[in-house]
């Protein structure tokens, strides 16, 4: 049963990722990315990471993708008409590079696949909010604070960049 669920989610994730890359309309791309994130959240549930699955749907598919959609709608960019028209060589090289990276990663996974562990039984409760919060607020408290500082800095930076006046000839 779990195997079928994994296959279904994996096919969904790969298909939505491919559709995201090749679809011409930017809004369609964003919606396929949402589908991809939701299927990844299902995979996280299969791996008993319940907290991160919920966070994936709430933060990624909810907040960040809404931000992306907002920017797409704000900029009102038309679809790329020249996606697959010219510069065939560039796409060929890109595809070749992607396949090369994939082959390298698969080779390294395959050469280590004998030493990889099987599922441990004590992992059943390790992905809950309680278990993660326990470690997050004791062992990783300093990185947690640094992340808070980083998010504040990012917010300030975004406001500064967005408020910057358009520089024209008369207004310097």
């Amino acid at each position: 049963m779990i195997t079928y669920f994994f296959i279904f989610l994996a096919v969904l994730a790969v298909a939505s990722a491919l559709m995201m890359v090749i679809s011409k309309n930017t809004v369609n791309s964003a919606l396929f990315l949402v589908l991809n994130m939701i299927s990844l959240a299902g995979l996280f549930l299969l791996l008993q990471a319940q907290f991160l699955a919920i966070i994936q749907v709430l933060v990624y598919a909810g907040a960040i993708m809404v931000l992306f959609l907002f920017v797409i709608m704000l900029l009102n960019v038309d679809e790329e008409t020249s996606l697959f028209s010219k510069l065939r060589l560039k796409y060929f090289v890109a595809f070749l590079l992607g396949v090369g990276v994939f082959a390298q990663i698969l080779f390294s996974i395959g050469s280590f696949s004998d030493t990889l562990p099987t599922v441990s039984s004590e992992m059943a409760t390790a992905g809950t909010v309680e278990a993660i919060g326990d470690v997050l607020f004791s062992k990783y408290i300093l990185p947690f604070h640094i992340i808070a500082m980083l998010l504040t800095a990012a917010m300030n930076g975004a406001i500064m960049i967005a408020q910057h006046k358009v520089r024209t000839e008369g207004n310097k």
Partner: protein
Amino acid sequence: MIGIDWFLALSALLFCIGVIGVLIRKNAIVIFMCVELMLNAVNLSLISFSSHYGNVDGQILVFFSLAIAAAEAVVGLAIIIAIFRNNLSVDISKINLLRW
């Protein structure tokens, strides 16, 4: 139960789709979304390692990478909006601000 290598192979495949997307697309926003795809793929491999080694540290790392992705999306989209206001385009083949 599925072995860890299937999860890692799926993560590698998603990562490479993201790499190809970054290389072939011209729309800056779509390139950003492909970067998010790559981050997600790495998150999947981190969680599968964490789950199979029985150690929560990988999931904490995923938590941090999520926060980094949020910060990156905010700043990056602000930069894209600023560039769009100056150039009226998000086509990266038309943006040559940093060309020497």
